[in-house]
């Protein structure tokens, strides 16, 4: 029988509250930064970020079209968040997600533009590539005791350079524009099938990527909570030695987790680039989507469904940066806000204890035992 707990004491409510608090404080700090940069137009600036594409609200068709594009662009951010969340449940910080995303770009664009494959095969190729890129740190972690964060970061850079070599050739790259060819023109079969196109104002880019993302999130939820593998994974994350003692194959679980996480990141890349909404440009730095995924996963309270909403919020703010008046501000302010939000996510535990202390109970004097118990409870969600 469950004890009746007050509304604010429920772990789920607290997680949501803490995340909302992070986002609100992050946005407020963003406003302060705008104030420092140019006090006169700060109100206007933060409004531009927050109102975003809703400024087209006088024309529902245009609005829906922009909304569709927003969803399409949120897909990779959400999926990268899911990838990081999945690994984090097993106690692994998959910062290599950015590299796995990058090899996903290589595989999907090369197979689609270069080899002219069907979209389905391209998606599979991207997942396999991401999986392999996750396998390397997995094996290194499990069998050679290499910190997965360091290995992941090294692989991110290697992936970037490989990407610039492979996609920089004439085969994939339109050298006059120095970006990859338009898939819709070169290989129409390589584009993902459309999804509810008319509903989104005839947006060409809205594809089955959007429903696939939701399905993946639900799938992760089920795997984590309803399967033996998910249980073992979480047990390994809580206490590796205890899991090993209980007869779980910790090494196999580490490798498998990172492979799956990598495959999700690879899928994220395929589901963005195979819509044709963006083309890859040669870049000197690793694509930021993988890193945004970290923000998304933590902001979403490490819950697969929460991650969807967090992903949309993060993408919304990033897109909002492009609506800033560039006479006064530069769009990187939006990135700064995201970074601040991630930093604040580190304080979630503190926020939760804070909310708990605000409650009436004097029973919670044992402040040391309480937080750890709470987190354990919360991770079960």
């Amino acid at each position, binding site marked *: 029988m469950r004890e009746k707990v007050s509304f604010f004491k429920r772990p789920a409510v607290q997680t949501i509250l803490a995340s909302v608090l992070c986002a609100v404080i992050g946005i407020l700090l963003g406003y302060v*930064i705008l104030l420092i*940069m140019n006090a006169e137009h700060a109100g206007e600036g933060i409004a531009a970020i927050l109102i975003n594409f809703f400024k087209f609200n006088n024309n529902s068709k245009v609005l829906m079209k922009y909304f569709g594009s927003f969803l399409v662009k949120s897909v990779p951010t959400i999926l990268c968040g899911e990838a990081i969340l999945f690994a984090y449940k097993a106690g692994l*910080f998959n*910062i290599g997600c950015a590299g796995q995303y990058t090899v996903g770009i290589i595989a999907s664009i090369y197979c689609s533009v270069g080899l002219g494959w069907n979209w389905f095969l391209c998606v599979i190729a991207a997942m396999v590539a991401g999986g392999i890129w996750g396998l*390397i740190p997995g094996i*290194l972690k499990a069998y*050679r*005791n*290499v*910190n997965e*964060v*360091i*290995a992941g*970061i*090294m*692989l*991110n*850079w*290697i992936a970037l*350079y*490989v990407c*610039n*070599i492979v996609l920089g050739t004439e085969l994939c790259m339109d050298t006059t524009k120095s970006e990859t060819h338009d898939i819709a023109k070169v290989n129409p079969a390589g584009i993902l099938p459309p999804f509810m196109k008319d509903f989104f104002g005839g947006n060409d880019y809205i594809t089955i990527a959007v429903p696939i993302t939701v399905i993946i999130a639900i799938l992760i939820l089920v795997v984590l909570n309803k399967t033996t593998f998910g249980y073992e994974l979480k047990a390994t994350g809580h206490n590796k030695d205890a899991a090993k003692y209980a007869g779980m194959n910790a090494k196999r679980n580490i490798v498998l987790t990172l492979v799956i996480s990598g495959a999700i990141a690879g899928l994220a890349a395929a589901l963005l680039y195979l819509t044709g909404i963006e083309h890859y440009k040669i870049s*000197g*730095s690793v694509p930021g989507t993988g*890193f945004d995924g*970290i923000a998304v996963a*933590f902001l979403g309270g490490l819950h697969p469904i929460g991650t969807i909403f967090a992903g949309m919020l993060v993408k919304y703010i990033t897109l909002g940066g492009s609506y800033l008046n*560039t006479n006064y501000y*530069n769009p*990187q*302010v939006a*990135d*700064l806000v*995201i*970074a*601040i939000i*991630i*930093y604040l*996510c*580190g*304080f979630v*535990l*503190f926020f939760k204890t804070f909310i708990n202390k605000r409650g009436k109970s004097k029973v919670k004097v044992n*402040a*040391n035992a309480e937080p750890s118990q709470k987190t354990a409870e919360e991770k079960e969600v």
Partner: protein
Amino acid sequence: MALLIQYTLISSAVLILVALGGMFSERSGIINLGLEGIMVFGAMAGAMTMVILPSGTSRFVLIIATLCAAAIAGMLSSLLIAVACINFKADQTLIGTALNMLATAAATVIVKGFNTARSNGSDFSAKLDYFTQFQAFQIHTKYIDFNWFEVVALILLVVATVFFYKTKLALRLRACGEHPQAADSVGINVYAMRYTGVLISGFLGGLGGIIYIAAANSTWHFDQGVAGAGFLALAVMIFGQWKPERIAWSAVLFAVFRSLSNVYIGIDFLHSLPIPGTVYNMFPYIVSLVVLAFTSQNSRAPKAEGIPYDKGMR
């Protein structure tokens, strides 16, 4: 060949300082993944100081002011880690990553604002030029060019090694990384020691940042950060088994590989190999992966690193 030595010296100076910074932080029990971000902040402050100082400034003042600005900026940014991880017991990996993202975004925004203000709105770039100041750091000799940064790095290496092995403070700091509860029980203030560790890493990381951008370049684009140098330094630190003297020589080893990408065109037999130039850029990363795979097995990492210290949990 002279060029290779020159670049190797510069890279070693950077890697030694930043890796030593990481070492002090980890030895006190805090994993500092934000070294990259600290470097960016240090680099930004140093470069801005160089640009602001009037052109007639003497060489000595210029060098001291630049280094001080970088070190102070590094320490201030490391406070972001210290406060979150020590007082608020935040996840150290997450905070480090956040600092890295924060640093690149903040540096871009600040430098752009700085340029806009300086040029009355005609220059929006995230780029700083400091050619004349860059000249002041160079020491020309007959065969190869040194620069003052390498001298500073060498002095700091010696100081850090002596400090690390011969002082009471460092001994206490190391104790906090191995068994903070035991340290606390004999009256050592664990929080203070960890603050010391993180602040030292901020000091050294900030210096490493300015050396990274100013030793071989006379201009820097701040939207690209420091391209993974902070993480290479972490790899150096692990390869160096958290010991200053081992870190020094492993930094030199990594620096050689890193320099190859700068100078392979000048070395005939490397240039004639049918390898695209980008492959040399990958080299240091691949080498560090391989090296880590063979050295992490019997890693001597501090026992308590990454675990927030809670006085109540003895």
